């Protein structure tokens, strides 16, 4: 029997997924050991080995692969634990990281501090040099000044160096030369060059990427090497990979070389988990919204044709992460989100969270403000004695008290109604997040399947679907460990990019094709290194394109790996069509500009599950374990809600709402007018009733 293992090492929990013999999937959850990720992983491995009745060595020797998602890079940034990093920039532009891009989110919010630059100004030094927009040298690089700068940085004890010059994307010679001088003058010091880390226009995003990358190098290298040696020391000789911000897996060496790719590792696995799980349930078409609702946050991504778009606008703490990452939108809305009334009596929920300590009032750990979890308990959607694998008995009276005092009495409603209201507000916040991301992508969510992940998701996902007009909701068995599942099944993948400005009226075929050749060579070399066989490889090209005069590009995929005049025509037509899809207008006949060429080099998705047909409809009666006195608004108030044990439900069981399905780490709600069916993979597929379409009087 062989095993494949995946772990999502988060801040609080480590989620693990084990595939046995390429088929059966087991899921585990364990606490993360703060400060030492290797210990956390090894503890998890020990737990799994024990549950299989094996010692660690035997278990690890049978593991053919270990895929890992980790927050080490993200947390280093959020907690300011990066290396002391110097930045070399073009003279006259020391403040690029301070200026950022403007565009304050709420200009009325006056009383706040301006965020500090990622690298302080005192470690930022300009060198005389300048390249112009066409790549011409306006001021040659002053190498003596570079050396002087390096000795200054050495005296200031920097541990890494970032280099980012204006227009290095068009002419990287100065950045490359500075790299050579660094290697000669300060051999061994880690450094990153802007045009290599993030070869895209806009100096702030590129400089920040170089700064982040350099600043993470010492730490990431140490941690990854540690994980490698601890695993091999424990007997693991299989393939170790890490999931990156692009949602693909890559080798430890690639991650050490480009540690910025490790940012957002972990959550980037969820979207493909959503897609893959939906696909294995036979859900078509591939329009999927993957959500993940935990204790403090709610995350959502949108996938069309099973593909999840990348974007460059993720915020990492205060910093804009300009490198393409799987587009996952995150808001502060989870089970621990706190409900409160403002001075005008309007209710709000979150983003403040009670966290795990003190946690919701019902945890009995000193929490005294009402949370979403308290509301779910009060409205009868959570059972006090089966919460979180029965690790915690919930205090209903405490939850009722805080909701009554803080919400129900001031609003003159009864406590159940107030609990319903708290949940509605949380759901509206999540609907907002979903609308933001679907609006941005120009898609209509009504035709999507909503996949629910996270411990807190199953109680709210149907209400969210109803508000968005979505009919199909899937709560997979792996809902509690969605990201880890995505990490396990993720493809090996690396993104390559190159800037080259040209436009449709004077297209530079020669340079573009030379560049595509280079991208292809880089991509194939990566796939060779990763041992991906030729027949399972995939090269996906795309280009950043815009109308002349626009400054925001859209990502336009294309199939050809060389472009001729026919290929260009197709490319331009596809741009018009995509622009129309996103923004409802096209400007046929207008010049289209191309700025950056990208390649995703991918291996196959590991072990796609095959759907086994269920043999007809089953009666769930045998799995009925009791009733809960619930309060459901659509039913006009109090209702006895049947509760089923999810582990005892047979494939094909049909559950008519209202009903609750108790799973080991989650509870799922089937609303009154909907029905759920247990799928072949053990998930719960809920079908919402058809809603009246809104006719417009245009």
């Amino acid at each position, binding site marked *: 029997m062989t095993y494949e293992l995946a772990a999502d090492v988060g801040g609080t929990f480590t989620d693990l997924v084990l595939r046995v013999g390429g088929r059966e999937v087991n899921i585990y959850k364990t606490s993360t050991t703060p400060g030492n990720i290797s210990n956390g992983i090894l503890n998890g491995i020990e737990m799994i080995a024990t549950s299989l009745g094996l010692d660690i060595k035997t278990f690890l020797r049978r593991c053919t692969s270990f895929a890992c998602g980790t927050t080490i890079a993200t947390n280093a940034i959020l907690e300011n634990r990066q290396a002391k990093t110097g930045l070399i920039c073009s003279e*006259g532009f020391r403040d690029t990281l301070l200026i950022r891009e403007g565009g304050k989110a709420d*200009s009325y919010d006056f009383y706040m501090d*301006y965020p500090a630059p990622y690298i302080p*100004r005192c470690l930022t030094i300009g060198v005389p040099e*300048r390249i112009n927009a066409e790549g011409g040298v306006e001021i040659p690089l002053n190498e003596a000044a570079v050396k002087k700068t390096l000795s200054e940085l050495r005296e200031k004890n920097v541990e890494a160096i970032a280099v980012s010059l204006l227009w290095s994307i068009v002419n990287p010679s100065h950045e490359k030369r500075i790299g050579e001088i660094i290697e000669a003058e300060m051999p061994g010091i880690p450094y990153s060059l802007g045009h290599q880390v993030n070869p895209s226009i806009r*100096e702030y995003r590129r400089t920040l990427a170089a700064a982040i990358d350099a600043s993470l190098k010492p730490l990431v290298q140490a941690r990854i090497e540690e994980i490698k040696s601890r695993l091999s020391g424990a007997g693991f000789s299989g393939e170790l990979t890490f999931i990156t911000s692009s949602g693909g897996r890559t080798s430890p060496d690639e991650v050490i070389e480009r540690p910025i790719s490790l940012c957002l590792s972990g959550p980037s696995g969820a979207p493909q988990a959503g897609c893959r799980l939906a696909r294995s349930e036979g859900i078509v078409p591939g329009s999927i919204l993957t959500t993940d609702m935990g204790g403090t946050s709610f995350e959502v991504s949108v996938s069309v044709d099973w593909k999840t778009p990348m974007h460059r606008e993720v915020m990492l703490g205060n910093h804009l992460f300009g490198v393409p990452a799987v587009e996952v939108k995150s808001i502060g809305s989870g089970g621990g989100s706190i409900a409160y009334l403002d001075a005008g009596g309007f209710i709000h929920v979150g983003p403040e969270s009670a966290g795990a300590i003190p946690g919701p009032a019902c945890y009995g750990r000193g929490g005294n403000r009402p949370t979403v979890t308290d509301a779910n308990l009060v409205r009868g959607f959570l059972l006090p004695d089966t919460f979180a694998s029965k690790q915690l008995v919930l205090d209903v009276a405490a939850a009722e008290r805080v909701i009554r005092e803080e919400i129900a009495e001031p609003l003159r409603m009864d406590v159940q109604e107030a609990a319903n209201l708290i949940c509605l507000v949380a759901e509206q916040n999540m609907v907002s997040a979903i609308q933001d991301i679907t609006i941005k992508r120009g898609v209509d969510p009504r035709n999507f399947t909503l996949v629910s992940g996270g411990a807190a998701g199953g109680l709210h996902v149907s209400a969210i679907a109803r508000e968005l007009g979505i009919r199909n909701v899937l709560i997979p068995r792996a809902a509690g460990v969605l990201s880890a599942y995505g990490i396990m099944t993720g493809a090996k993948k690396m993104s390559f990019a190159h800037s080259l400005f040209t436009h449709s009226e004077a297209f530079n075929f020669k340079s573009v094709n030379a560049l595509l050749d280079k991208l292809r060579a880089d991509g194939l070399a990566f796939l060779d290194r990763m041992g991906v066989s030729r027949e399972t490889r995939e090269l996906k090209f795309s280009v950043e394109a815009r109308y002349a005069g626009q400054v925001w590009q859209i990502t336009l995929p294309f199939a050809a790996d060389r472009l001729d005049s026919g290929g260009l025509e197709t490319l331009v037509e596809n741009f018009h069509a995509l622009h129309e899809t996103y923004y409802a207008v096209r400007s046929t006949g207008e010049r289209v500009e191309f700025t950056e060429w990208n390649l995703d080099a991918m291996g196959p998705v590991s072990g796609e599950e095959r759907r086994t047909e269920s043999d007809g409809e089953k009666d769930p009666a045998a799995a009925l374990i009791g009733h809960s006195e619930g309060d459901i*608004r659509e039913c006009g108030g109090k209702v006895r809600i049947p509760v089923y044990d999810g582990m005892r439900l047979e494939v094909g069981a049909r559950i008519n709402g209202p009903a609750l399905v108790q799973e080991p780490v989650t509870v799922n709600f089937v609303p009154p007018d909907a029905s759920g069916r247990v799928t072949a993979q053990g998930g719960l597929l809920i079908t919402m009733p058809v809603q009246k379409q*809104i006719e*417009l009087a245009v």
Partner: protein
Amino acid sequence: MNDVAGTVEHDEVDMFTMVVLRRRIEAVIRNMINTLFRTGRSGVLNTAMDFSCSVTDSEFRTVSTALGLPVHVGAIDLIPKAIAKKFGDDQHPGDCFANNSAYHGNTHCGDFTLCAPVFLDGEVIFYAIARAHLGDIGFPTPTTYGPLSRDIYEEGLKLPCVRIQRNYVDVQEVIDICQANIRAPNQFYGDYLATLAAVRTGEIGMQQICRQYGVARVRKFLAQFQEYAKTMAIAAIRKLPAGRVTREARYDSETDLYPEGIPIRVTIDVDPEEGMITVDLMNNVDNLPLGINLSEATMRATCYTAVLTVLGPDVPRSTGAYNRIRILSREGAAIGRPKFPAATSCATTNLTQLLGPMVRSAFADLRKGLGSACGTLGMPASCAVVSGQDDRRNGERFINQIIMGFWGGPGLQGHDGWFTHGGSGSMGALWQSSIEIVEQQQPVLVEALEIIEDSGGAGEWCGAPGAYCIFRSRTDGIRYTGNAAGHDFPPFGVAGGLDGSQNDVLWEGRDGARHTLANSFDIILNKDEKLVSKGSGGGGYGNPLDRNPDLVARDVQEGWVSPARARQTFGVVLQCDGFKYHADHAATGRLRADISARVPVPLKAYV
């Protein structure tokens, strides 16, 4: 959830529906903004995001103006009011009206505002509004700001609330007139389509909401929401001290009428018991023969915004809250409502940028801890409108406003100025142009963009620094126009805080000699000639001798403040071990006592 309110009595919208409808309407506005942002063509739209979207109901009430530029959206209700006044019942489905006239409720002529009445069952129920700042509106000179315009006839094309679409089809004559008057007609049409797309997006969104919930219920929601906003505003006003404060400041004069500077006067009167704040602007000078007169829209928006920032971010920015602010203004006053044919093309920038801080600083006088100092004034030369022909693109014409180095936020209690605050019409909302995008779009090379040491006004809480910026022409004949301010009267400090640095505009010849330019400049610079901008820093808040010495050490470390100023102005004794500056707290205490003892020597003497 769709029919949650079905169980409730008909005359009140319950909290469940309130929550849902508030989110729905905000989602519609966000959708409008996203449409405009991603499709706009000119730099001020798609890089600076100099545009705003909103909806009002048929009684011109707004629900949320949280998402636009403060100066754009504070009084956006004037736009549909102008339509109702001018067209009455002659509004039909598929209509869209264009307005850039300060005499018809618009902000200034550079803001191109489209507004469509939203119909349901043959009745106007809402208005969808999108306002975008265009790169050009057909001025005699290539700009949208005419600070020296003597009257409206020097301010280019006027669109006094005219129908630009009928039955969802362009009124071609109006488009033709626009394209005949506006430089870069193709860019204009692209921006028009983007703005129109936003309006139509809003129209569909509001119709969907009304279909689903019923017009009566949506209307009832709006009424209740205004009550809620009113309650929030009153609650916030009740926390303020009662009192009346008058402030006067001077503004750089470019008219012989006011050789000592243009006086600006504001009185605020806070009545916590009534929950009302009065902003009295009556005692101001007559309309000036300049383009800096305020429009009614910018005057009102500026007062609302300034007061609401004092009331805090939780108060909804909607009509119900605005109604707790009484504005007394005079027709024919520069700070008031313009009297035809006064020029107002700079109504969103120059005097607006002084009026907002004056209102806020009056609160600082009322009680230290409230309000703020003054942020940057005018647009620094690094925000010039540049135009010319681009040799790199076969002489293609270009015109764009660059938004660069628009910094200098005012100090306020507990916080140094927001670095990219810009003027009070933006308050940080504008996006800063990328150097590379600027250089790709124009044959201009940016030679420097860095903060100016010691430019932020010193205070317990400092003003943010101003920008040192140089543009070099890469071809002959590039024209730079701008409307700077803050040279004679730089951004003021309050509560003992010092003024920010003065703004300077210069040009540099090929020989390297620099020449000062006037605030309102219009200059053609040939290849290798340069425009040099030194932007104002924001004013400081509170006495600099009260500033935390550790913050001063950090400012010196980071090169924001010179060691000399740290000592002389902040009274901080620094020690430097290797590269790191530390404040010597004991020695600082002694130095500060010495400096204080020599009062009344004005602190500025030390700068």
